[in-house]
């Protein structure tokens, strides 16, 4: 059992942060790695990135957006409650290197995934500009954290309620135009990663994305998480989740993410839980 020691509801309860006792995982985790969590006996195995770890305290932190049955079930867990199973750390850690000017682009809960990577990139001496986007101000998460983790934080909202009115790609274009950008890291909804990659390809800037296909085991034994990268099939749980953004087949990934759409709806409805 993995006990929740701290819990915070962000953006009006649609995004939740949990700090969880998992000493063995905390000891080994590196930025970019994820865990798989299962709430109870009948639960599904759900992959979530570790937004933070505290090896001394023996805890890991996850930040998740409530999007369906399992994440709604996770939200029911309060401080003192426990996840039945947590497996990790999984996936390859982020390749961290000092390259100079870096732009980190995040959208939705991708921001939570992006946070530890941004912080690590800055810590090793990169000049990190961060561009984060949300549909509207009230669902923007982790503004302060991202501000601290980067040298320059730029905010975009689709409805113009905060920061730049428009998409992250607008601001990205501006930054790329100034030149000198050595690396772009983009994490968020698949369409966002697709458009960022398309743009950075025009500017010939290396781009790393973190993919979120549906997973089961997370250890390379089922192939559920396969993605096409550079025309080859890769297992995101072991070969990734980070890949060269210019090589990913995003359209295939989007279709694969819809595999269980009907079942997911039914599962949520019959559970009586709300989003």
């Amino acid at each position, binding site marked *: 059992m993995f006990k929740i020691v701290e819990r915070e509801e962000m953006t009006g309860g649609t995004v939740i942060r949990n700090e969880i006792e998992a000493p063995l995982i905390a000891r080994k985790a590196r930025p970019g790695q994820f865990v798989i969590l299962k709430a109870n006996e009948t639960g599904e195995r759900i992959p979530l990135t570790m937004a933070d770890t505290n090896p001394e305290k023996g805890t890991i932190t996850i930040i998740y957006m409530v999007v369906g049955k399992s994440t709604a079930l996770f939200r029911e867990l309060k401080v003192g409650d426990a996840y*039945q199973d947590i*497996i*990790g750390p999984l996936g390859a850690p982020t390749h961290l290197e000092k390259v100079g000017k870096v732009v980190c682009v995040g959208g939705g809960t991708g921001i939570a995934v992006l946070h530890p990577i941004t912080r690590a990139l800055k810590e090793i001496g990169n000049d990190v500009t961060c561009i984060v986007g949300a549909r509207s101000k009230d669902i923007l998460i982790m503004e302060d954290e991202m501000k601290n983790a980067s040298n320059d934080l730029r905010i975009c909202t689709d409805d113009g309620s905060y920061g730049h009115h428009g998409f992250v790609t607008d601001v990205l274009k501006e930054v790329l135009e100034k030149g000198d950008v050595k690396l772009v890291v983009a994490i968020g909804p698949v369409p966002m990663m697709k458009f960022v990659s398309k743009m950075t390809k025009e500017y010939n800037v290396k781009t790393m994305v973190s993919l979120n296909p549906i997973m089961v*085991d997370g250890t390379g034994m089922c192939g559920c998480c396969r993605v096409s990268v550079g025309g080859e099939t890769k297992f995101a749980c072991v070969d990734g989740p980070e890949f060269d953004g210019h090589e990913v087949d995003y359209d295939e990934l989007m279709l694969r993410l819809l595999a269980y759409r009907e079942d997911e709806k039914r*599962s949520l409805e019959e559970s009586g839980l709300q989003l």
Partner: protein
Amino acid sequence: MAKKEKIDRQIMPEQAPYIRAKNFEEVPLGLTQEAAVKEAQRCMQCKKPACVEGCPVGVDIPGFIKLIAEEKFVKSIRKIWEKNALPAVCGRVCPQELQCEGKCIVGKKGDPVAIGNLERFVADKERISGTGELPPKAAPTGKKVAVVGSGPSGLTVAGDLTLKGHQVTVFEAFHKPGGVLVYGIPEFRLPKDIVFSEVAFLEKLGVTVNCNAVVGRTVSVDELFEEGYDAVYIGVGAGLPRFLNVPGENLVGLFSANEYLTRSNLMKAYRFPEYDTPIIRGKNVITLGAGNVAMDSARTALRLGAEKSRIVYRRSRDEVPARGAEVHHAEEEGVEFFFLTSPVEFKGNDQGRVTGMVGLKMELGEPDDSGRRRPVPIEGSEFELECDLAIVAVGAGPNPLLTQATEGLALNRWDYILADEATGKTSKKGVWAGGDIVTGSATVILAMGAGRIAADSIHDYLTWGW
């Protein structure tokens, strides 16, 4: 010997095909005590029993059968335990027709003695109504052993070494122990309660089972030594799914058998939405391959509502590698076979979902390395089969997750771990390996046999230092 009255092989009652093809309950119902005793009387108690030679772990088959005939059931199960720690499992899943029963003298003229069914009978009897008495255990040695992987080979090592007085901890990547017995083989063939009661038995003996421990990630082999383990056994199986490398393989609705069976068995997707994990319920299903894994997939598909469940295999019926009983059960339940057919492409719709498979007819040519006649394509023979679910069950390979994270562990050219056949020792000091991660996909009993050999060698090492 006095002439015996001829007794026919006792038939094990089964659920009727049309009923069982719609549920996940076990198919064969087990022998009654009366039938088992009668069946046991068919054994001729040979002086030089051929069946024992056919058993990879050398169970004293006439010995345990005689004790059934004498209705000494507890003694009978003890006899099997001397060589085989998981008889309730083996009685259900061993390919007896190729092993013990294939060699049985009675089988030369008629049906062989139903060794597997008898083994299953006594094991079930002990589990359900036995004494529950634990076997004697040696005094604690103070030595610690880590077993990586809780499949049949790991469980065997754990059981043997705990009885020899060592302190054993099993590390399992999944959230439940049992390996393929739990995530791969379906409930209707091997009820999971049997596996869990075997594991519970080991825990009662003093074995610690740590689930959610991915060795190579959560902890490394070298860290296990740093934590004070004196020896490590690696029994992580051959869990890497193989795909066909044909166009259309990433369409939604195309699964590896590993994923399909893991969702259904381990995650209990067949009870969705009571269990949260979903699975695609195809009406028109194609399974590629014809081993046990393929039979399990095709039969699971029927139980999940398929109207058509078809097996596509590139060789002919004679080469089908699955256990005889499984092929027979699959056919009875209505699984159709397309032999000498090879998939060349999968077709999909605009939502990226699979709608069909293009197959190519094959004919048998010259024998290949395996001695089986090589299937060669017949040019221009492409044809299309419709499907809304396709399951690829063409084999598995070694998962590199642990081996890549472990220094000093020599691998063979297919990336399986190199281990000495007589001891299970690897190139790394203090590390043994066995089961599918050494041999490639094989059988439960061979994995257990390898575990037994390694356990003996580990015991020697812990006792005398070599």
